[in-house]
């Protein structure tokens, strides 16, 4: 691999990893929201049974 090829690969890889990191952050946020929805559903069920 020439040095030019290495730099081009690095530049495109940085963008790919950046987008991937953003997807991972969004996935973590989605998981948190999903947990919160579950908690609220549970809370609503308890309220109904009271």
């Amino acid at each position, binding site marked *: 691999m020439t040095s030019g090829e290495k730099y081009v690969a690095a530049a495109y890889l*940085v963008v790919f990893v950046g987008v991937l990191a953003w997807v991972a952050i969004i996935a973590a*946020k989605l998981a948190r929201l999903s947990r919160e929805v579950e908690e*609220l559903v549970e809370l609503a069920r308890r309220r109904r049974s009271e």
Partner: protein
Amino acid sequence: MISGRFPVVARLRQIPLSAFAWVTVALLGTAVALVFFYAPLDADQGLSQKIFYIHVPIALTAYACFVWGAWKALTHLRTRASGADLESYAAIHQGVIFGVLTLVTGSIWARSSWGIWWTWSSNQLVTFLILFLFYSAYFMLRYSIDPGAARANMCAVYALFGVVLIPVSWLSIRLANDFIHPTVFNQNGPQMSGSMFFTFCVCWLGLLALAATMYRVELVGKRLDARLRELRELLA
């Protein structure tokens, strides 16, 4: 109101998010194929010129995000439209993400072409860094104030001040005889072949679509978060 002023924006908003994401994937896939299998090798820089197709569109996309954030800030200040503050925040957040990518890819290209990672003598680099740091500080301001009308107003004014730096950054290279950073777009149009310019346009379109998808996903997440908080308060 914005939709009324910009029919294209209104039409884009009607496209379901999943369809938008698939269009982005198709555009970016096409862009990468064009860069490596269609665009000719640059006679001067050789293979490392391929970084141009990702670095410049990312920088222009960052500018577009900051302008959109400032426009939404102005909308908030003029009309107090609900959600404009959140939209301004999301756009600036995307701008900062694309700003980081601009600085990193630019640094790699600089190392490849000039043999250095960074130079303080290039006005274009320094003004972009100032713009990036200015908008990075936006988050410090936002999270140092309690949520409410005061925070929304202060953030909107800050976002509007920042947008002034964009033409400064754009023009600095042209006004200051910057010999280090190349000027590809000048008064005579793009200084590249037709196939290179076509590839560049597809890359930019793909990255704009990526920024728009990320912006919409972030807004959906933030609105859902707010709704859940509201629901939690109602059930408490």
